[in-house]
């Protein structure tokens, strides 16, 4: 069986995998990082999105062997070691951008990449279009869009902390 070595959330792991093993299976089954979810089998829902070398990728459509040597970040690796949340995590809570929480890890990982790739800022419509690859069945997306806009302000240094949601 092929062997892969990869760094996940700062820790290096070596694992034997089948050629057909998907990255998400390696993360969930072997490394027990169950924050990354599988919501479909056609690469449509985005619940499995992680970052590979800083880019958002659907880990259900990536073979584990393709991630050999890569630096992977999952939802578990976003908060700082002291527990400080990433602004996107904080914004999702502040804006009630999650309900059942199942799509949330992939949604957060996609959103961070979307914001990072657009330092000029994003309109509401651009955020909506940027979420094409992520499905949420609970929220209707409205609060997710608001959370991403609020997190973007902090990530781009326009604000020092997440703006409070309107009551």
């Amino acid at each position, binding site marked *: 069986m092929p062997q892969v070595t990869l760094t996940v959330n700062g820790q290096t792991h070596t694992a034997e995998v089948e050629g057909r093993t998907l990255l998400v299976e390696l993360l969930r089954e072997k490394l027990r990082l169950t924050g*990354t979810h599988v919501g*479909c089998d*056609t690469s449509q829902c985005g619940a499995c999105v992680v970052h590979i070398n800083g880019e958002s990728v659907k880990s259900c459509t990536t073979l584990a062997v393709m991630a050999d040597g890569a630096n992977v970040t999952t939802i578990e690796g976003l908060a700082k070691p002291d527990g400080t*949340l990433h602004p996107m995590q904080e914004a999702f809570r502040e804006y*009630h951008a999650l309900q059942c929480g*199942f*799509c949330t890890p992939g949604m957060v990982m996609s959103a961070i990449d979307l914001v990072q790739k657009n330092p000029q800022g994003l309109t509401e419509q651009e955020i909506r279009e940027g979420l094409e690859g992520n*499905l949420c*069945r609970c929220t209707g997306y*409205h609060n997710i869009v608001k959370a991403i806009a609020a997190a973007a302000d902090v990530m781009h240094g326009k604000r020092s902390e997440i703006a409070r949601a309107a009551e």
Partner: protein
Amino acid sequence: MNVVAPFEGIGASVRRKEDFRFIQGRGAYTDDFNRQGQLHAWIVRSPHAHARIKGVDTSAAAKMPGVVAVFTGADMAKDNLGGLPCGWQIHNKDGSPMAEPPHPVLAVDKVRHVGDPVAVAIAATREQARDAAEAIAVDYEVLPAAATMADALKPGAPVIHDGVANNLCYDWHIGDKAVLDQAFAGAAKVVSLDLVNNRLIPNAMEPRAALGEFDRTTGDYTLTTTSQNPHVIRLLMGANVLHIPESKLRVVAPDVGGGFGSKIYHYAEEAIVTWSAGKLARPVKWTADRSESFMSDAHGRDHVSKAELALDANGKFLGLRVHTYANMGAYLSTFAPCVPTYLYATLLAGVYTTPVIYCEVKAVFTNTVPVDAYRGAGRPEATFLLERLMDVAAKETGIDRVDLRRRNFIPTDAFPYQTPVALQYDSGNYHATLDQALQSADWAGFEARRAEAAKRGKLRGIGCSTYLEACGIAPSAVVGSLGARAGLYEVGTIRVHPTGSVTVLTGSHSHGQGHETTFAQLVADRLGVPVAQVDVVHGDTAKVPFGMGTYGSRSLAVGGSAMVKAMDKIIAKGKRIAAHLMEASVDDIEFDRGTFRVAGTDRTKALVDISVAAYVPHNYPIDELEPGLEETAFYDPKNFTYPGGCHIAEVEIDPETGQVSVANFTAVDDVGRVINPMIVEGQVQGGVAQGIGQALLEACVYDADGQLLSGSMMDYTMPRADDLPPVSVATHTTLCTHNPLGVKGCGEVGAIGSPPAVINAVVDALRDFNVRSLDMPATPAKIWQIINGGRRMAAE
């Protein structure tokens, strides 16, 4: 300096407690659990809609690497397992019971829909189980299939279940037909409309999963499952299928990733993994692929109806006649029979004073996945029918569509209001929600927006729906008389710990609704304990005394009321302890948010003083009072609750493509008292998204042979962020009069009110094309054909 704690009680938008784990990937969903020695199951499913099983050859599969067992329906039959039970019995017009054919866990002699489970391969890894499943050879004799209700009802149609004549599950009715016929005879105008309520696939983001365990030492079984109601699953599976007493069967529903109804029902896979775990004395896990979810989760809606409304010369409704065909699919899912009857026909009065209503419902078996409750369950179908009928009636009588609704509203002073279809509404103010929505959506200013859109070459339309629904189905005695095989109360335990923190045990289940926060707020409000010190436990039959679970927006109205009842018992006991400690009469003790006070004095005891005394009863009225501070209450509601409101959609159509986009959406809902406005708004937004999905995007499609064509997320159109508008949500409250919180329920209003508002707006946008009937979803192809067909006709 005094630090004032933030208000966390009823009415505060407290940020959710459960979010900390979800935003850090620490949620614990069923598939996240892995046990020592765990095996994996893969289900072999029928590729045919209807076929006889001539043989199942498992010999090759059994020899595959890692395979531990292969089971078929015949193996289950040897253990005398029962079939999957149905929880509601409807009676026909003639009083005879509905047809209730068996629903084997694994098909035995026939398969009846694509996806019907036939066998299970169990192996060390999921991949090995899947490989083995592919090696199981099933010899099918393919039979003609009835993919639609029309096919199933035709003379000479395929017989889906032996002994079920004409594939008819039941032929039921409500109302007085003779009186209705008289009303129609005296009508100035009769408006009729044919409608299809499109079949939907729920698609909660977490696919179903189940993990069975068996303890060889104790003989105890544990099922961890993606369920909205673990106690109900324990009852149904234990008593009906596996014959395991409750004392030996624990059902856990941990974090569940959305349900929308689809996770209410007892499914075959739950029984398969639990039974297999016992047979093999090893944990067995099954997790659905999304493709399996499409062909095995219960679907929703799927009605074909004809509605006729009789009006007098002033536009007052005289009577309503409805004939509906409701698709049950191939088998009866757990609550399927009650959806098109007691959750649908009883809602046909809506918000109107229609004096006579007659509704006939024929429930039909087809070779499709079972159909059951999906967000709204019956009420969206009733609302779509009524609110489409309103717009057609307005057009055909020449009365303004808002005015026609107003003329027929149940007056605000007419509550309690008895409808002709069994329900008695306790409260509401339909004029107020309509007025507020009209103003918020700037209904009056719409024509200017239509004209502006026309300049851009776009067709703009506006539509409304004034809906009513019924939540918290109850009371138990009444639903029992209507065919329910369960009670519909809820259970709540309040455990005040010695040092004053509180654990709430609830029989409701949260799968996204935020109960851990809302229920903690109830405790904060009544007992004065900070939300951070209140833990809500749900979803485990070993921890929670009993429960009926979460569906029909019942958790707060029924489950919350049980908690209030339990808290009232805590307060009553606390007063007796406080009276003892302060040497006062119990009648003189007052309680307000955490403080017991001797009336008219400054002598007080905090709740924590009482809880310490209760658990360390050194100075305690031990002769007359037991130690401890924990109370349980069962709450059986006196009635349904009746949320209602007005939804307004404004759409724009690109005539070149037929694409409909929702420009604005306004919801004004009366959900009773609001505990957490942030959560209520989120529930409404999510519901509206599903309603817009039904109206514009989503359709479950079978071909003539019963193959599921919309069997993946590449084929079934799930609403995405750029398909949806920002939704303006507001509430206008009238209190429920019969539960202690005054709450009505907010989980389904969005999905109930929105579809007709959207379709009415689309029809309004197409007013130049003489559209009378428009079935959902209003896809670009459908709209383009209307526009171009109309243009062609105009040219001719």
